[in-house]
């Protein structure tokens, strides 16, 4: 999911920090701390999908 967000930011030439900040504020998570080792929490994933849809109009 994070990779798709990074792609979207690059494709649309968006301000990466601003977009990640908005996503972070919306989900209550620091995007910078999300990595491949981050455990999947269904609640966090749902929040992230919702935020991505709202901010980037991106369906994950």
């Amino acid at each position, binding site marked *: 999911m994070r990779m798709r967000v990074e792609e979207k930011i690059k494709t649309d030439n968006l301000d990466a920090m601003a977009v990640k900040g908005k996503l972070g*504020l919306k989900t209550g998570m620091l995007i910078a*701390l999300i990595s491949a080792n981050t455990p999947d929490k269904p609640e966090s994933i749902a929040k992230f999908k919702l935020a991505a849809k709202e901010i980037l109009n991106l369906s994950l």
Partner: protein
Amino acid sequence: MKMNSIRTKVVVACLCCLAVGLGGILALIHFSFNRNTQNLATQAVTGAQSLFAISETREIRKMSALTQSLNLNPRIGDALLARDREHLIETTAPFFLNLKDDGITDFTFHTQELDPAVFLRLQDPARYGDHMDRFMDKQVATTLTMVTGNEMGRAGFAVRTIAPMFGSHGEVAGYVEFGEELGQFLNAMKSTTGDDYGLLLDKKYINQQFWADSNQTLNRRDNWGDSPNYVVWDKTAKFDRICDFKGDLSTLPSTGQALDHFHEGNSEFVRGVFPIQDVAGNKVGAIFVVRDITTFYHSMQHTELIFAVSTVVAVLIGTGIFLLMLSRLVFDRLERIIKIATSVVGGDFGTEIQVRSNDEVGQLEQLFEQFRQVFVDVLSHVPELQQK
């Protein structure tokens, strides 16, 4: 512009203030305009009442002096005493020709009785012998002193004097009456002030036969049937509404009152009225005054427009300056704080929030900058980020 932003709310508030302020100013101007027109009408009434009183007094003095000068010629009193109509006409007719030019419309001799009969009307010599049955006739016969005032006669509604005439031996020979029809007053007042006047009389104080006779004498249409209670004696204006009155004339205050504001054609007018009394003290009618206020009216309209435009421009400029200051001092700085705070959360730990002043927003900038520094310091100890 977002509907829930402070900027939008401020703009809406300013527009509301503009509308309320403009409405208030227009209402104030309207109130002031109405008060001024009311004052103009009151001034017109006061001026007309004074002018009427002055004219009435002057004419009464003139007629009083005429009476005295007649009494200086005992031949006139003797002719009246002897009931010698031919001699009386011969003596006084040339005199009356000159008096007509001075506005005297009624020059009448009455017999010396408690209910005096008309002995000679110089303005209508063929008609005599009738009893007028008026207040002033009875009053002069009772008191044997001059009686003055307004009263209806066969030659119109007039300001009159009636006084005893004396024979060469000092005996009362009869009475002499002078009258000046009040329509002439209205025309004289109009030529002095430029205002228009109308005289309305209450029918209950007017003898209908006298009214008909007067109109015949003055060669006018008999308008007795035009209105149920009142009748217009004379008016200087072309339009009829000058004497338009639905109330009760007897309830008018003695100082008069302003009535209304109306327009006729392209002109604007104010109207007022004051009562007039007859010799017995009854409020027999009223004089209406109409003043043309077109120039004043247009001037007020122009002022109203200038005020309205000035208010709109001033409020718009004020609103613009207010919004500009708010943007510079508050909104732009808040937006910058939000942008940097968001970027920090997004991973941009290096952009500092510039504290631009020590005002309220400056304190918030400082607080956020301190918070950002703490936040960045905390994150610097997170292992995942250290690896990156």
